[in-house]
């Protein structure tokens, strides 16, 4: 049995409700979430839009804090960890690459430079990482904006890996990409897990992706966990009727 990486206890999140007509000023985004994420596993977080998938990820690197409940990483409460150390240990990649202005190399070495790693050492890291994500070193000196979106997404992955994270959070990392680029990112995820032992939590709206790479599936709807369990079981014998609806594309947000 793998070691517990993240443990969430009674985690709830509310946000000011922009659409509210004044009756209730906040919207419940996540409601009493209890779950664990195991080390070295790939978990696919799925659910209709507005289910709270992205918000769940944002709590794990403390881009936001839950209103109630506690989250631990390797047994330590997130709030007791240094915020910068936490965010380096728990890297995040978004749907859009959002590279910074400048070269590919400058993007990849952003994190190392913040940590005070000298330029030469950071450049060496960038050279190694661009190959890790399946691109060639010739791209390093190119302006980041000149790359294709698929290449940019790999660079954004390399930029996150430059912090040497233990956990990767990916928020719909392939939904802006064409099918080939998307398949490459999925292969890369599986590869990173087996080579570096990374714990990977990724949000996807495509059950097919979860079937391909995930060990475990977490299905959310309206801020609550509907079903959580081994991917094989989820796809062959889902326990909750709403999971079956979701797999048939019929679960509404």
């Amino acid at each position, binding site marked *: 049995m793998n070691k517990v990486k993240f443990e969430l206890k009674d985690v709830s999140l509310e*946000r*000011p409700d*922009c659409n509210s007509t004044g009756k209730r000023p906040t919207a419940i985004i996540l409601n009493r979430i209890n779950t664990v994420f195991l080390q070295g596993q790939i978990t696919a977080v799925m659910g209709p839009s507005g289910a709270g998938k992205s918000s769940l990820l944002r709590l794990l*690197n*403390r*881009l*936001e*804090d839950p209103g109630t409940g506690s989250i631990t990483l390797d047994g330590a409460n997130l709030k007791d960890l240094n*915020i*910068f150390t936490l*965010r*380096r240990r728990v*890297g*995040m990649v*978004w749907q*859009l690459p*959002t590279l*910074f*202005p400048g070269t590919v190399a400058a993007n990849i070495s*952003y*994190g190392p430079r*913040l*940590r005070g790693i000298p330029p030469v050492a950071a450049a060496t890291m960038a050279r190694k990482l661009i190959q890790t994500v399946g691109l060639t070193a010739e791209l390093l000196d190119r302006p980041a904006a000149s790359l294709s979106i698929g290449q940019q997404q790999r660079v*954004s992955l390399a*930029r*996150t890996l430059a*912090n040497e994270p233990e956990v990767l959070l990916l928020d719909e990392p392939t939904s802006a990409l064409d099918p080939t680029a998307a398949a490459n990112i999925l292969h890369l995820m599986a590869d990173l897990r087996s080579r570096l032992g990374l714990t990977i939590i990724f949000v996807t709206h495509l059950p097919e992706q979860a079937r391909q790479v995930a060990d475990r599936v977490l299905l959310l709807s309206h801020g609550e966990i509907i079903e959580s369990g081994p991917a094989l079981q989820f796809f062959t014998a889902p326990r909750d009727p709403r999971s079956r609806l979701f797999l048939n594309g019929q679960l509404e947000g």
Partner: protein
Amino acid sequence: MLQYIDIGPGDIALALVLVGITLAISLWQHLDLHGDLLVGSVRAFIQLMAVGYLLQLIFNLNRWYLVVLALVIMLLVAAGNAYRRQQERWPQLFFVMLLAIGCGGLLTLTIVIAVVLKVKPWYQPQYIIPLAGMIVGNAMVGAALAVNRLTGEIKAHRDAIEVALALGATARQAIIPYLRASLRAAMLPTVSTMMTVGIVQLPGMMTGQIIAGASPAAAVKYQIVVTYMIAAATALTTITATLTAYRYYFTPNHQLKPPLKNTAA
């Protein structure tokens, strides 16, 4: 010293002929300018007359506390004005403006009065009031521009800011590219004025001194000091304003706060 021509009430009335010409053209060509122009002319007259008498009073009484009172009022009005010009307002922003214009303005004013001009006593209204007016006016415009730009940048670049935070940047490190852009934008009018001063236009203060009888050579020296003074005051104010204002958008844990709801102008 050259002759100084005093302007009498009749002369002002004659100057109104200038406005009259434009009013007539506006009416004749149906340009709808006359309403604004008329209100503007009347307001300018009343405001300038009022401030003229008020300044005359302060000059005649020549008391330090009256000068300080005038400075305080200038600062409050400038901070209020810079605050009202913001597309995105939050309660503490008025005090951010007051702090920024106060720090940048008073520091510059102190150096010019005490070190450069060595005015004695320091509160001589003839020097401190016009200099403070120029400083505070420019600082106000700079602070308003800088903070407006900063809030716009934050709104437009939330994604990139959160990417930087997620990579282990502090709020300050994540915001610094946008802080720089805001400062550049706010300093642009001042810097371009410095680049063209004397070539494209003659500054109002220098023109005024020359008309009042000062030699161009003397007026130019004042203008140089004033140009540096305005640049310094604007820079210090915009730096203070942006470095204080950005903090409002982050939590102490280096998290970008959700977007504000009341973004109405």
